Protein backbone atom coordinates (compact mmCIF):
# COMPACT_ATOMS: atom_id res chain seq x y z
CA UNK A 1 0.00 0.00 0.00
CA UNK A 2 2.75 2.42 1.01
CA UNK A 3 4.86 1.29 -1.92
CA UNK A 4 2.05 1.92 -4.39
CA UNK A 5 1.62 5.41 -2.96
CA UNK A 6 5.34 5.99 -3.45
CA UNK A 7 5.06 4.70 -6.98
CA UNK A 8 2.18 7.07 -7.72
CA UNK A 9 4.25 9.97 -6.32
CA UNK A 10 7.22 9.01 -8.51
CA UNK A 11 4.94 8.85 -11.55
CA UNK A 12 3.50 12.29 -10.74
CA UNK A 13 6.90 13.90 -10.21
CA UNK A 14 9.16 12.06 -12.63
CA UNK A 15 6.68 10.69 -15.15
CA UNK A 16 8.21 7.22 -14.88
CA UNK A 17 6.59 3.96 -13.82
CA UNK A 18 8.71 1.85 -11.52
CA UNK A 19 7.90 -1.86 -11.23
CA UNK A 20 6.14 -2.81 -8.00
CA UNK A 21 6.08 -6.19 -6.32
CA UNK A 22 5.35 -7.69 -2.95
CA UNK A 23 7.23 -10.21 -0.81
CA UNK A 24 5.75 -12.58 1.74
CA UNK A 25 8.58 -13.27 4.15
CA UNK A 26 6.93 -15.94 6.31
CA UNK A 27 9.23 -18.71 5.05
CA UNK A 28 12.29 -16.62 5.96
CA UNK A 29 11.34 -15.57 9.47
CA UNK A 30 13.53 -16.50 12.42
CA UNK A 31 10.83 -15.95 15.04
CA UNK A 32 8.50 -18.81 14.08
CA UNK A 33 9.47 -20.50 17.34
CA UNK A 34 7.88 -17.68 19.25
CA UNK A 35 4.62 -17.86 17.38
CA UNK A 36 4.32 -21.59 17.95
CA UNK A 37 2.10 -22.37 14.97
CA UNK A 38 2.60 -22.14 11.27
CA UNK A 39 1.26 -18.84 9.92
CA UNK A 40 -0.38 -18.97 6.49
CA UNK A 41 2.11 -18.21 3.75
CA UNK A 42 0.84 -15.84 1.11
CA UNK A 43 2.03 -15.66 -2.44
CA UNK A 44 4.79 -13.24 -3.25
CA UNK A 45 4.24 -11.27 -6.44
CA UNK A 46 7.43 -10.18 -8.13
CA UNK A 47 6.92 -10.38 -11.88
CA UNK A 48 10.03 -8.50 -12.94
CA UNK A 49 13.73 -9.25 -12.72
CA UNK A 50 15.60 -7.60 -9.86
CA UNK A 51 19.00 -8.29 -11.45
CA UNK A 52 21.14 -5.17 -11.63
CA UNK A 53 18.38 -2.90 -10.34
CA UNK A 54 18.17 -0.69 -7.29
CA UNK A 55 15.39 -2.21 -5.19
CA UNK A 56 13.72 -0.15 -2.47
CA UNK A 57 12.13 -2.23 0.29
CA UNK A 58 9.14 -0.43 1.78
CA UNK A 59 7.72 -1.26 5.19
CA UNK A 60 5.45 0.56 7.60
CA UNK A 61 7.29 0.23 10.90
CA UNK A 62 11.00 -0.49 11.41
CA UNK A 63 11.54 -2.11 14.82
CA UNK A 64 13.97 -4.98 15.49
CA UNK A 65 15.10 -5.21 11.87
CA UNK A 66 14.33 -8.94 11.68
CA UNK A 67 11.59 -8.52 9.10
CA UNK A 68 13.98 -6.60 6.87
CA UNK A 69 16.66 -9.26 7.31
CA UNK A 70 14.10 -11.86 6.18
CA UNK A 71 13.00 -9.68 3.27
CA UNK A 72 16.59 -9.28 2.08
CA UNK A 73 17.10 -13.05 2.23
CA UNK A 74 13.91 -13.55 0.22
CA UNK A 75 14.85 -10.86 -2.30
CA UNK A 76 18.27 -12.31 -3.14
CA UNK A 77 16.56 -15.61 -4.02
CA UNK A 78 15.04 -13.71 -6.95
CA UNK A 79 18.32 -12.40 -8.31
CA UNK A 80 21.16 -9.98 -7.59
CA UNK A 81 20.00 -6.38 -7.20
CA UNK A 82 22.61 -3.67 -7.76
CA UNK A 83 21.60 -2.19 -4.42
CA UNK A 84 18.90 -2.68 -1.80
CA UNK A 85 17.56 0.41 -0.03
CA UNK A 86 15.07 0.66 2.78
CA UNK A 87 12.21 3.15 3.13
CA UNK A 88 9.96 3.11 6.22
CA UNK A 89 7.07 5.22 7.40
CA UNK A 90 8.00 5.00 11.06
CA UNK A 91 11.30 4.13 12.72
CA UNK A 92 10.54 3.23 16.33
CA UNK A 93 14.08 2.19 17.33
CA UNK A 94 15.12 -0.89 19.36
CA UNK A 95 17.07 -2.57 16.56
CA UNK A 96 18.39 -6.09 17.19
CA UNK A 97 20.32 -6.31 13.94
CA UNK A 98 22.75 -3.95 12.19
CA UNK A 99 20.10 -2.52 9.86
CA UNK A 100 19.16 1.11 9.23
CA UNK A 101 16.66 2.78 6.94
CA UNK A 102 17.76 5.00 4.04
CA UNK A 103 14.48 6.92 4.01
CA UNK A 104 12.42 7.53 7.14
CA UNK A 105 9.04 9.24 7.33
CA UNK A 106 9.31 9.95 11.02
CA UNK A 107 11.42 8.78 13.94
CA UNK A 108 9.12 7.93 16.83
CA UNK A 109 10.64 7.19 20.24
CA UNK A 110 8.89 4.22 21.84
CA UNK A 111 9.24 1.71 24.64
CA UNK A 112 10.01 -1.83 23.46
CA UNK A 113 6.65 -2.92 24.91
CA UNK A 114 4.58 -0.30 23.07
CA UNK A 115 2.40 -1.20 20.09
CA UNK A 116 2.72 0.98 17.00
CA UNK A 117 -0.40 0.82 14.85
CA UNK A 118 -0.44 2.15 11.33
CA UNK A 119 -3.81 2.89 9.71
CA UNK A 120 -3.98 3.63 6.01
CA UNK A 121 -6.86 5.23 4.16
CA UNK A 122 -6.95 2.33 1.65
CA UNK A 123 -7.70 -0.16 4.44
CA UNK A 124 -8.99 1.72 7.46
CA UNK A 125 -10.45 4.82 5.85
CA UNK A 126 -7.97 7.12 7.62
CA UNK A 127 -4.25 7.86 7.66
CA UNK A 128 -3.00 7.65 11.21
CA UNK A 129 -0.14 6.26 13.26
CA UNK A 130 -0.79 5.65 16.93
CA UNK A 131 1.51 4.50 19.68
CA UNK A 132 -0.35 2.43 22.24
CA UNK A 133 1.25 1.62 25.59
CA UNK A 134 1.07 -2.07 26.43
CA UNK A 135 -0.85 -1.40 29.68
CA UNK A 136 -3.65 0.17 27.67
CA UNK A 137 -3.72 -2.80 25.30
CA UNK A 138 -4.04 -5.24 28.16
CA UNK A 139 -7.29 -3.77 29.49
Amino acid sequence: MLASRLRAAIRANEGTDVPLGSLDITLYRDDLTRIGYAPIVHESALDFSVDGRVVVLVDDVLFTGRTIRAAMDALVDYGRPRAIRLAVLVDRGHRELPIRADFVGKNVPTKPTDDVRVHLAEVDGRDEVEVVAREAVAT
Partner: protein
Amino acid sequence: MRWKRRHVLDTDDWTRDEIEGVLETTGAMIEVLSRPIRRAPPLRGRTVVLFFAEASTRTRVSFELAAKALSADVVNITASGSSVEKGESLYDTVRTLQALGGDVVVMRHSASGAPYFVAERTDAAVINAGDGWHAHPTQGLLDAYTLRGALGDLDGKRIVIVGDVLHSRVARSDINTLVPLGATVTLSGPPTLMPAPWRCGQPPRGVTYESDIDRALDGADAVIALRLQKERQEGGLLPSLREYTRVWGLTAARVERMRTGAPVMHPGPMNEGVEIDTAVAHGARSLVEKQVTNGVAVRMALLYLLVGTPSLEAAS
Protein backbone atom coordinates in the same frame (compact mmCIF):
# COMPACT_ATOMS: atom_id res chain seq x y z
CA MET B 1 -6.96 -21.33 9.29
CA ARG B 2 -4.94 -22.25 12.37
CA TRP B 3 -3.09 -25.52 11.62
CA LYS B 4 -3.37 -27.99 14.50
CA ARG B 5 -2.65 -31.44 13.09
CA ARG B 6 0.39 -33.48 14.06
CA HIS B 7 0.05 -36.00 11.22
CA VAL B 8 -1.54 -36.27 7.80
CA LEU B 9 -2.95 -39.80 7.74
CA ASP B 10 -6.29 -39.34 6.00
CA THR B 11 -8.38 -36.36 4.92
CA ASP B 12 -11.70 -38.03 5.77
CA ASP B 13 -12.18 -35.85 8.86
CA TRP B 14 -10.85 -32.59 7.43
CA THR B 15 -12.98 -29.46 7.34
CA ARG B 16 -13.39 -27.33 4.25
CA ASP B 17 -11.42 -24.65 6.08
CA GLU B 18 -8.43 -26.94 6.57
CA ILE B 19 -8.46 -28.11 2.96
CA GLU B 20 -8.63 -24.51 1.73
CA GLY B 21 -5.79 -23.51 4.06
CA VAL B 22 -3.56 -26.18 2.54
CA LEU B 23 -4.55 -25.17 -1.00
CA GLU B 24 -3.78 -21.53 -0.25
CA THR B 25 -0.37 -22.47 1.15
CA THR B 26 0.16 -24.60 -1.98
CA GLY B 27 -0.30 -21.48 -4.12
CA ALA B 28 2.49 -19.76 -2.21
CA MET B 29 4.72 -22.81 -2.71
CA ILE B 30 4.06 -22.77 -6.48
CA GLU B 31 5.43 -19.23 -6.43
CA VAL B 32 8.54 -20.39 -4.53
CA LEU B 33 9.09 -23.04 -7.22
CA SER B 34 8.88 -20.38 -9.94
CA ARG B 35 11.78 -18.36 -8.54
CA PRO B 36 15.28 -18.42 -10.02
CA ILE B 37 16.41 -20.04 -6.74
CA ARG B 38 13.77 -22.67 -6.08
CA ARG B 39 14.47 -23.01 -2.39
CA ALA B 40 13.26 -21.42 0.84
CA PRO B 41 14.68 -22.01 4.31
CA PRO B 42 11.86 -22.95 6.76
CA LEU B 43 12.91 -26.61 7.22
CA ARG B 44 16.62 -25.94 7.69
CA GLY B 45 18.10 -28.48 10.08
CA ARG B 46 15.09 -30.80 9.84
CA THR B 47 15.23 -34.37 8.62
CA VAL B 48 12.54 -35.92 6.46
CA VAL B 49 12.61 -39.73 6.28
CA LEU B 50 11.06 -41.21 3.16
CA PHE B 51 10.00 -44.74 4.10
CA PHE B 52 8.59 -46.44 1.00
CA ALA B 53 7.77 -50.08 1.70
CA GLU B 54 5.95 -50.32 -1.64
CA ALA B 55 7.18 -49.42 -5.11
CA SER B 56 6.79 -45.78 -6.06
CA THR B 57 8.85 -43.41 -8.12
CA ARG B 58 6.84 -40.28 -8.69
CA THR B 59 5.42 -39.87 -5.20
CA ARG B 60 8.79 -40.50 -3.58
CA VAL B 61 10.64 -38.12 -5.91
CA SER B 62 7.90 -35.54 -5.44
CA PHE B 63 8.28 -35.65 -1.65
CA GLU B 64 12.06 -35.56 -1.97
CA LEU B 65 11.96 -32.45 -4.17
CA ALA B 66 9.43 -30.84 -1.82
CA ALA B 67 11.57 -31.48 1.25
CA LYS B 68 14.69 -30.18 -0.47
CA ALA B 69 12.94 -27.05 -1.75
CA LEU B 70 12.27 -26.22 1.91
CA SER B 71 15.93 -26.92 2.83
CA ALA B 72 15.32 -30.15 4.78
CA ASP B 73 17.70 -33.12 4.83
CA VAL B 74 16.26 -36.23 3.22
CA VAL B 75 16.88 -39.87 4.13
CA ASN B 76 15.50 -42.65 1.93
CA ILE B 77 14.47 -46.07 3.20
CA THR B 78 13.01 -48.41 0.60
CA ALA B 79 11.72 -51.93 1.11
CA SER B 80 14.08 -53.53 -1.35
CA GLY B 81 17.68 -53.32 -0.23
CA SER B 82 16.78 -52.53 3.38
CA SER B 83 16.27 -54.71 6.42
CA VAL B 84 12.53 -54.77 5.60
CA GLU B 85 13.48 -57.28 2.94
CA LYS B 86 15.34 -59.30 5.55
CA GLY B 87 12.11 -59.71 7.45
CA GLU B 88 12.30 -56.80 9.88
CA SER B 89 8.87 -56.11 11.35
CA LEU B 90 7.18 -52.76 10.88
CA TYR B 91 7.51 -52.25 14.63
CA ASP B 92 11.30 -52.67 14.52
CA THR B 93 11.52 -50.35 11.53
CA VAL B 94 9.60 -47.73 13.52
CA ARG B 95 11.98 -48.08 16.46
CA THR B 96 14.87 -47.53 14.08
CA LEU B 97 13.23 -44.48 12.49
CA GLN B 98 12.63 -43.11 15.97
CA ALA B 99 16.27 -43.64 16.92
CA LEU B 100 17.45 -41.93 13.73
CA GLY B 101 15.65 -38.80 14.86
CA GLY B 102 13.65 -37.88 11.79
CA ASP B 103 11.26 -34.96 12.21
CA VAL B 104 8.89 -36.24 9.54
CA VAL B 105 8.26 -39.76 8.31
CA VAL B 106 6.66 -39.93 4.87
CA MET B 107 5.47 -43.47 4.38
CA ARG B 108 3.96 -45.71 1.76
CA HIS B 109 2.87 -49.20 2.73
CA SER B 110 0.79 -51.95 1.15
CA ALA B 111 -1.15 -52.50 4.39
CA SER B 112 -4.10 -50.16 4.94
CA GLY B 113 -3.65 -48.41 8.28
CA ALA B 114 0.12 -48.92 8.56
CA PRO B 115 0.77 -45.14 8.94
CA TYR B 116 -1.56 -45.08 11.98
CA PHE B 117 0.52 -47.82 13.57
CA VAL B 118 3.68 -45.78 13.00
CA ALA B 119 2.12 -42.46 14.09
CA GLU B 120 1.22 -43.94 17.48
CA ARG B 121 4.77 -45.11 18.08
CA THR B 122 6.96 -42.21 17.04
CA ASP B 123 7.52 -38.57 17.95
CA ALA B 124 7.85 -37.66 14.28
CA ALA B 125 5.06 -36.20 12.19
CA VAL B 126 3.75 -38.89 9.85
CA ILE B 127 2.51 -38.21 6.32
CA ASN B 128 0.65 -41.03 4.61
CA ALA B 129 1.96 -41.34 1.05
CA GLY B 130 -0.47 -44.16 0.28
CA ASP B 131 -1.54 -47.14 2.40
CA GLY B 132 -3.15 -50.15 0.76
CA TRP B 133 -6.65 -49.41 -0.50
CA HIS B 134 -7.22 -46.87 2.22
CA ALA B 135 -5.95 -43.36 1.52
CA HIS B 136 -3.51 -41.20 -0.42
CA PRO B 137 -4.20 -37.76 1.06
CA THR B 138 -1.58 -35.79 -0.88
CA GLN B 139 -3.00 -37.11 -4.18
CA GLY B 140 -6.48 -35.96 -3.17
CA LEU B 141 -5.17 -32.51 -2.26
CA LEU B 142 -3.13 -32.10 -5.43
CA ASP B 143 -6.08 -33.21 -7.54
CA ALA B 144 -8.27 -30.62 -5.80
CA TYR B 145 -5.63 -27.92 -6.35
CA THR B 146 -5.27 -28.87 -10.03
CA LEU B 147 -9.05 -28.92 -10.57
CA ARG B 148 -9.40 -25.52 -8.94
CA GLY B 149 -6.73 -24.14 -11.23
CA ALA B 150 -8.68 -25.39 -14.24
CA LEU B 151 -12.29 -24.86 -13.12
CA GLY B 152 -12.14 -22.16 -10.43
CA ASP B 153 -14.48 -22.67 -7.49
CA LEU B 154 -15.55 -26.33 -7.26
CA ASP B 155 -18.97 -25.55 -5.77
CA GLY B 156 -21.58 -27.38 -7.85
CA LYS B 157 -19.00 -28.91 -10.21
CA ARG B 158 -19.42 -32.57 -11.14
CA ILE B 159 -16.27 -34.69 -11.32
CA VAL B 160 -16.31 -38.21 -12.81
CA ILE B 161 -13.94 -40.88 -11.49
CA VAL B 162 -13.64 -43.90 -13.80
CA GLY B 163 -12.11 -47.28 -13.11
CA ASP B 164 -11.20 -49.61 -10.30
CA VAL B 165 -12.64 -47.68 -7.37
CA LEU B 166 -12.74 -50.74 -5.12
CA HIS B 167 -8.94 -51.02 -4.82
CA SER B 168 -8.24 -47.30 -5.19
CA ARG B 169 -6.91 -45.17 -2.36
CA VAL B 170 -6.76 -42.31 -4.86
CA ALA B 171 -10.54 -42.47 -5.44
CA ARG B 172 -11.22 -42.40 -1.69
CA SER B 173 -8.91 -39.46 -1.08
CA ASP B 174 -10.27 -37.58 -4.09
CA ILE B 175 -13.81 -38.00 -2.73
CA ASN B 176 -12.72 -36.88 0.76
CA THR B 177 -11.21 -33.70 -0.64
CA LEU B 178 -13.52 -32.75 -3.50
CA VAL B 179 -16.87 -33.23 -1.73
CA PRO B 180 -16.11 -30.85 1.18
CA LEU B 181 -15.10 -28.25 -1.43
CA GLY B 182 -18.63 -28.39 -2.86
CA ALA B 183 -18.15 -30.75 -5.81
CA THR B 184 -20.16 -33.87 -6.51
CA VAL B 185 -18.48 -37.06 -7.66
CA THR B 186 -19.89 -39.57 -10.16
CA LEU B 187 -18.20 -42.96 -10.04
CA SER B 188 -18.20 -45.20 -13.08
CA GLY B 189 -16.56 -48.57 -13.73
CA PRO B 190 -17.19 -52.30 -13.68
CA PRO B 191 -19.55 -53.29 -10.86
CA THR B 192 -17.01 -55.91 -9.75
CA LEU B 193 -14.55 -53.05 -9.08
CA MET B 194 -16.98 -50.87 -7.05
CA PRO B 195 -17.52 -51.17 -3.30
CA ALA B 196 -20.83 -53.06 -3.05
CA PRO B 197 -22.70 -50.52 -0.86
CA TRP B 198 -21.64 -47.68 -3.14
CA ARG B 199 -23.19 -49.28 -6.24
CA CYS B 200 -26.25 -50.50 -4.31
CA GLY B 201 -27.68 -47.15 -3.33
CA GLN B 202 -25.54 -46.34 -0.28
CA PRO B 203 -22.66 -44.22 -1.57
CA PRO B 204 -20.96 -41.60 0.64
CA ARG B 205 -22.38 -38.07 0.75
CA GLY B 206 -21.91 -36.20 -2.53
CA VAL B 207 -21.20 -39.40 -4.50
CA THR B 208 -23.28 -41.34 -7.02
CA TYR B 209 -22.60 -44.47 -9.09
CA GLU B 210 -23.45 -44.54 -12.80
CA SER B 211 -22.84 -47.87 -14.52
CA ASP B 212 -22.94 -46.33 -18.01
CA ILE B 213 -19.75 -44.37 -18.59
CA ASP B 214 -21.25 -42.32 -21.44
CA ARG B 215 -24.09 -41.16 -19.21
CA ALA B 216 -21.59 -40.43 -16.42
CA LEU B 217 -19.54 -38.22 -18.73
CA ASP B 218 -22.46 -36.32 -20.27
CA GLY B 219 -22.02 -32.67 -19.27
CA ALA B 220 -19.39 -33.44 -16.63
CA ASP B 221 -16.88 -30.76 -15.55
CA ALA B 222 -13.83 -33.06 -15.37
CA VAL B 223 -12.84 -36.72 -15.37
CA ILE B 224 -10.21 -38.61 -13.39
CA ALA B 225 -9.19 -41.99 -14.82
CA LEU B 226 -7.80 -44.51 -12.36
CA ARG B 227 -4.94 -46.86 -13.08
CA LEU B 228 -6.14 -50.36 -13.87
CA GLN B 229 -3.92 -52.85 -12.16
CA LYS B 230 -3.37 -55.68 -14.54
CA GLU B 231 -3.48 -58.33 -11.84
CA ARG B 232 -7.20 -57.57 -11.37
CA GLN B 233 -7.87 -59.56 -14.49
CA GLU B 234 -6.12 -62.61 -13.07
CA GLY B 235 -8.24 -62.32 -9.95
CA GLY B 236 -11.33 -62.93 -12.06
CA LEU B 237 -12.76 -59.42 -11.60
CA LEU B 238 -12.41 -58.60 -15.30
CA PRO B 239 -13.01 -60.77 -18.35
CA SER B 240 -10.13 -59.17 -20.29
CA LEU B 241 -8.19 -55.93 -20.62
CA ARG B 242 -9.51 -55.56 -24.17
CA GLU B 243 -13.06 -55.66 -22.94
CA TYR B 244 -12.26 -53.19 -20.16
CA THR B 245 -10.79 -50.76 -22.68
CA ARG B 246 -13.78 -51.12 -25.00
CA VAL B 247 -16.36 -50.51 -22.26
CA TRP B 248 -14.55 -48.16 -19.82
CA GLY B 249 -11.55 -46.72 -21.66
CA LEU B 250 -11.34 -42.92 -21.96
CA THR B 251 -11.38 -42.32 -25.70
CA ALA B 252 -11.35 -39.00 -27.53
CA ALA B 253 -15.01 -39.52 -28.47
CA ARG B 254 -16.07 -40.20 -24.87
CA VAL B 255 -14.18 -37.20 -23.52
CA GLU B 256 -16.13 -34.98 -25.94
CA ARG B 257 -19.31 -35.77 -24.01
CA MET B 258 -18.12 -33.55 -21.15
CA ARG B 259 -18.47 -29.78 -21.04
CA THR B 260 -16.36 -27.91 -23.61
CA GLY B 261 -12.71 -28.08 -22.60
CA ALA B 262 -13.42 -30.14 -19.47
CA PRO B 263 -10.06 -31.48 -18.24
CA VAL B 264 -8.81 -35.07 -17.98
CA MET B 265 -6.63 -36.22 -15.10
CA HIS B 266 -4.86 -39.42 -14.08
CA PRO B 267 -2.81 -40.11 -10.94
CA GLY B 268 -0.18 -42.01 -12.96
CA PRO B 269 1.49 -44.15 -13.96
CA MET B 270 -0.83 -44.49 -16.95
CA ASN B 271 -1.54 -47.67 -18.90
CA GLU B 272 -1.96 -45.89 -22.19
CA GLY B 273 -4.29 -47.80 -24.46
CA VAL B 274 -5.97 -49.50 -21.48
CA GLU B 275 -7.81 -47.03 -19.22
CA ILE B 276 -6.90 -43.99 -21.32
CA ASP B 277 -6.14 -43.43 -25.01
CA THR B 278 -2.74 -41.98 -25.82
CA ALA B 279 -4.41 -39.12 -27.69
CA VAL B 280 -6.41 -38.22 -24.56
CA ALA B 281 -3.51 -38.73 -22.16
CA HIS B 282 -1.41 -36.17 -24.02
CA GLY B 283 -4.18 -34.09 -25.56
CA ALA B 284 -5.18 -30.49 -24.95
CA ARG B 285 -7.51 -31.44 -22.08
CA SER B 286 -4.88 -33.42 -20.21
CA LEU B 287 -3.70 -32.02 -16.87
CA VAL B 288 -1.51 -35.02 -16.08
CA GLU B 289 1.75 -33.06 -16.14
CA LYS B 290 0.18 -30.23 -14.17
CA GLN B 291 -0.78 -32.77 -11.50
CA VAL B 292 2.88 -33.80 -11.19
CA THR B 293 4.08 -30.19 -10.85
CA ASN B 294 1.36 -29.29 -8.36
CA GLY B 295 2.16 -32.43 -6.36
CA VAL B 296 5.52 -31.01 -5.28
CA ALA B 297 3.90 -27.77 -4.08
CA VAL B 298 1.14 -29.56 -2.13
CA ARG B 299 3.75 -31.67 -0.35
CA MET B 300 5.81 -28.57 0.43
CA ALA B 301 2.70 -26.97 1.94
CA LEU B 302 2.09 -29.96 4.24
CA LEU B 303 5.73 -30.24 5.28
CA TYR B 304 5.76 -26.54 6.11
CA LEU B 305 2.52 -26.71 8.08
CA LEU B 306 3.61 -29.82 10.02
CA VAL B 307 7.20 -28.92 10.93
CA GLY B 308 7.96 -25.50 9.40
CA THR B 309 7.80 -24.23 12.92
CA PRO B 310 8.70 -25.98 16.18
CA SER B 311 5.75 -27.04 18.30
CA LEU B 312 4.84 -24.93 21.30
CA GLU B 313 6.10 -27.63 23.66
CA ALA B 314 9.46 -27.74 21.91
CA ALA B 315 9.73 -23.95 21.99
CA SER B 316 9.09 -23.54 25.68
